[in-house]
């Protein structure tokens, strides 16, 4: 149905790239944005979508997703992951390379792109490894990966631990003008930790990861970026300290960008106790404690850190929101904390989560949308996505920012049902997602 | 909840005095006798009986305390009562043991008490003395010495209060609240 024009009428169109935030109609023709204006008379045969009371924005761009294919198809595939993305309002996904085989070679990059063409319903942009097999020992053939279509490099899952190797990587990647996204975590301070270091970890008898594990490497990466002129992007930052480190670096003009996930913008370490609020940190543990669905890397931190991350997003210190969608199968999480896999399935709850600080008046809706559209597009250096300007890709999301709904993982499209938000009530839901002019998701009435 | 007094302090005193005589008569004196009171309220009653026996006969039988919680058959799914220390500081072997309890009802406590006692040794005989028999037996158990027979309805409760534990002596029947 790509050929049928679509007229989206009467929604609040928020397009930060174009500086728009007003009630308007949006016309889509031939897979691109044809017009955005106060009133548009649709051409004959156009499908009309009534968006009154809803928000219309460019389709969201996720710089950090784990599609798990090739190699971990029991957790997710390109087919299921892109469908989950569409349900969450995402029309562009950057696929992390920690697959099996890892995307440290052009063949795997080709495979992912082919799978996306054949089975996917939204755009997939592959990310290549920084080092061979993400082992942190030798640089991957970044030139080949870039030519094959990689849009960034990352060893995500692991940090690039060797300081000198990171220096070389940043310098080398600058030749392709592609960023390196680093998972900031000093191994020696991480030491098999499973959650944030602090009171909750102490009383649960679990090994904690201190804030310093992230901050030390964030500071290192920024220093190396300044040294080499390379582009550094800090993945999923989680601490108040990291926000400050990035703030100071940006003030000094270092080319650093960074992202925060929906869960690091909303959830604290209390989720490990089985709680989604800040109450009862001293109450007795229950059988809901040791919630493996809250086990994620970097860990969920304290309220102080969450508030700082939200402020960082508001101030623009944190450039973008990225999901770090990390689906796992049931067995991977059905075990004691120490044995459980790290990761949360995020794509289908992302919007509801990131609207929580908006509803709480801690950050404005246009800024959040910018962090999901214009800002990631800037990092990817693309002018045809993350925007509703005329001629841009017809990637559009329509959502109801006030719709309340309860998270029911049995209804998830993703194979990953692993989220601490099971049973939680979120406010904000996608009603339709359009990719390249075709409707790829529509909420049932 | 409605309550009515069945025995007051004086009546309890006279009843126990009479029971002490009955025990002595049945057992032809104190020789080889022992009293074992079921905790919690059977024990002070046993102690008082021992004092009465000493007054009448000049010598008191030894008194033991027995907690039957560990021998009960009706605890499934229910809260666990606190256990108190069993203390039987004399050999059971060859003795005539009189078990003493405050209220005899279904008979299950006595069944449990007999099981417990058997673990301590082989008594030459076991007798039973109770302050109140309220009927509704579920097992073939009968008391040898009864202070007072009180017919009751199943939804009533017989409450025995003793000075040693409750500060005063009385036996009450407590009705559960009946709808008008």
């Amino acid at each position, binding site marked *: 149905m790509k050929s049928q024009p679509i007229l989206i009428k009467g929604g609040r169109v928020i397009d930060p790239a174009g500086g728009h935030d007003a009630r308007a109609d949006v016309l889509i023709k031939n897979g691109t944005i044809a017009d955005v204006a106060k009133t548009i008379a649709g051409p004959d045969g156009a499908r009309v979508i009534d968006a009154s009371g809803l928000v219309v924005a460019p389709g969201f761009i996720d710089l950090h997703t784990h599609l798990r294919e090739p190699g971990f198809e029991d957790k997710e595939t390109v087919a299921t992951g892109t469908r989950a993305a569409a349900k969450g309002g995402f029309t562009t996904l950057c696929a992390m390379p920690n697959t099996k085989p890892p995307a440290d070679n052009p063949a795997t990059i080709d495979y992912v792109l082919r799978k996306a063409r054949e089975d996917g319903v939204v755009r997939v942009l592959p990310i290549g490894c920084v080092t061979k097999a993400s082992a942190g020992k030798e640089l991957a053939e970044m030139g080949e990966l870039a030519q094959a279509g990689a849009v960034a490099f990352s060893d995500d899952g692991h940090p690039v631990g060797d300081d000198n190797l990171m220096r070389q990587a940043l310098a080398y990647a600058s030749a392709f003008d592609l960023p390196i996204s680093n998972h900031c975590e000093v191994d020696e301070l991480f030491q098999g930790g499973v959650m944030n270091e602090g009171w909750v970890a102490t009383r649960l*008898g*679990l090994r904690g990861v201190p804030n310093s594990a992230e901050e030390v490497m964030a500071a290192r990466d920024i220093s190396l970026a300044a040294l080499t002129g390379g582009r550094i992007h800090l993945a999923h930052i989680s601490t108040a300290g990291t926000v400050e480190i990035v703030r100071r670096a940006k003030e000094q003009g270092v080319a650093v960008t960074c992202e925060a996930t929906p869960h690091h913008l909303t959830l604290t370490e209390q989720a490990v106790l089985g709680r989604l609020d800040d109450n009862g940190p001293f109450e007795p543990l229950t*059988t809901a404690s040791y919630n493996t669905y809250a086990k994620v890397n970097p860990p969920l931190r304290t309220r102080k850190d969450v508030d700082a991350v939200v402020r960082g997003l508001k101030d623009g210190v944190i450039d973008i929101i990225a999901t770090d969608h990390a689906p796992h199968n049931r067995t991977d999480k059905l*075990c004691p904390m*120490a044995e459980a896999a790290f990761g949360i399935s995020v794509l289908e709850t992302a919007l509801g989560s990131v609207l929580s600080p908006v509803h709480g008046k801690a950050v404005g809706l246009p800024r959040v949308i910018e962090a999901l559209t214009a800002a990631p597009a800037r990092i990817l250096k693309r002018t045809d996505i993350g925007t509703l300007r005329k001629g841009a890709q017809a990637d559009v999301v329509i959502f109801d920012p006030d719709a309340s709904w309860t998270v029911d993982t049995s209804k998830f499209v993703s194979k990953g049902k692993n989220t601490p938000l099971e049973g939680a009530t979120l406010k904000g839901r996608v009603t339709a997602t359009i990719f390249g002019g075709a409707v790829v998701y529509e909420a049932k009435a | 909840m409605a309550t009515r007094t069945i025995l007051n302090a004086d009546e309890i005193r006279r009843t126990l005095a009479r029971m002490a005589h009955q025990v002595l008569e049945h057992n032809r004196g104190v020789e080889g006798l022992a009293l074992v009171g079921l905790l919690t309220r059977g024990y002070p009653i046993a102690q008082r009986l021992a004092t009465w026996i000493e007054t009448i006969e000049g010598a008191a039988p030894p008194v033991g305390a027995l907690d039957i919680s560990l021998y009960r058959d009706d605890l*499934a799914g229910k809260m*666990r009562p606190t256990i108190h*220390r069993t203390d039987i500081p004399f050999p059971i072997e060859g003795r005539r043991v009189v078990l003493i309890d405050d209220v005899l009802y279904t008979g299950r406590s006595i069944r449990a008490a007999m099981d417990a006692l058997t673990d*301590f040794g082989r008594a030459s005989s076991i007798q039973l003395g109770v302050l109140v028999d309220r009927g509704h037996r579920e097992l073939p158990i009968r008391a040898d010495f009864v202070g007072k027979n009180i017919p009751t309805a199943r939804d009533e409760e017989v409450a025995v209060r003793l000075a040693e534990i409750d500060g005063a002596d009385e036996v009450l029947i407590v009705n559960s609240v009946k709808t008008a």
Partner: protein
Amino acid sequence: MTMPARARKPEPYAGAAVALPRKHVLDLDDFTLDEIETTLQNTDAMREVLGREIRKVPTLRGKTVLTVFYEASTRTRVSFEQAGKVLSADVINVSSSGSSTEKGESLYNTALTLQAMNADIIVMRHPHSGAPYFLARHLKSCVINAGDGTHAHPTQALLDMYTMKRHFGKLQGLKVVIVGDILYSRVGRSNLWGLTKAGAEVTLCAPPTLLPPDFMSTSRQHHDHPFANVRVETNVEKAVEGAHVVMALRLQLERQRSGHLPSLREYSRMYCINPRRMALAHPDALVMHPGPMNEGIEIDPEVAHGARSVIEEQVTNGVAVRMALLYSVVTPVPSERRPS
């Protein structure tokens, strides 16, 4: 032969102490003070049973107690086994060596197998914190935690508290010092919960690298913090001064390798509970240790086997405490037990 007119009055029976309607014993953090006192009272009664000629009562007849130990431990496992058997339970031991766990079977699948065995009570020891909570979440059986990772060891803490109460008559106001590897000690943690609830004055003593980081910070100043009044001391002489109970914790020998300590020798010089240090404690002070001991490292042999040591008594009390807990948990009624 006339016997004394009145037999010795048994331990206090006045007042109906609270019955324990609990399903699991996972840690002491969810025990009320009443429940702790009831447990200690029941332990006393159980100790009497252990002193009888026929050490058997029919309380758990027909019930199945499974001991599932993923960590080697003869002492605790035997203690639970004995406790179960005195109560006439059928005790079955599942130890980790040679069982399906070594073949890589997940804890979840093992749990389903245990469930199918209709276990009434599962006693579990596991190297990962939270494992008993995982079992309790997925099974209908009662779960008793015999030690999980570095998190909790509630039965040990209860027997420690029982031992202290037996000697001093009360726990309120008692000065208790716990010395050693607090950071990794589940015994220390459960004792902290139990003793603070009972109103004891607790001091933790260890080098800074063996204390939980948040205990060194000001975060405990929160008014609701359960350990707000716990004293933290890095100097052992200051810590044991006037103490009624000195509890030495076992030092895992790999702490030196992992960078927590420069050497065991230094730890011993600075923290070993020796006669010179015990002289600073209260004249009636007790010395305790959960065992097994590294004699010469955290505790001097002379102190370990000296007059003030109650270490062997702790073991005896352990069986009584475990009997009290096996008695207290409300096992599923037979209709609940049958697999659905």
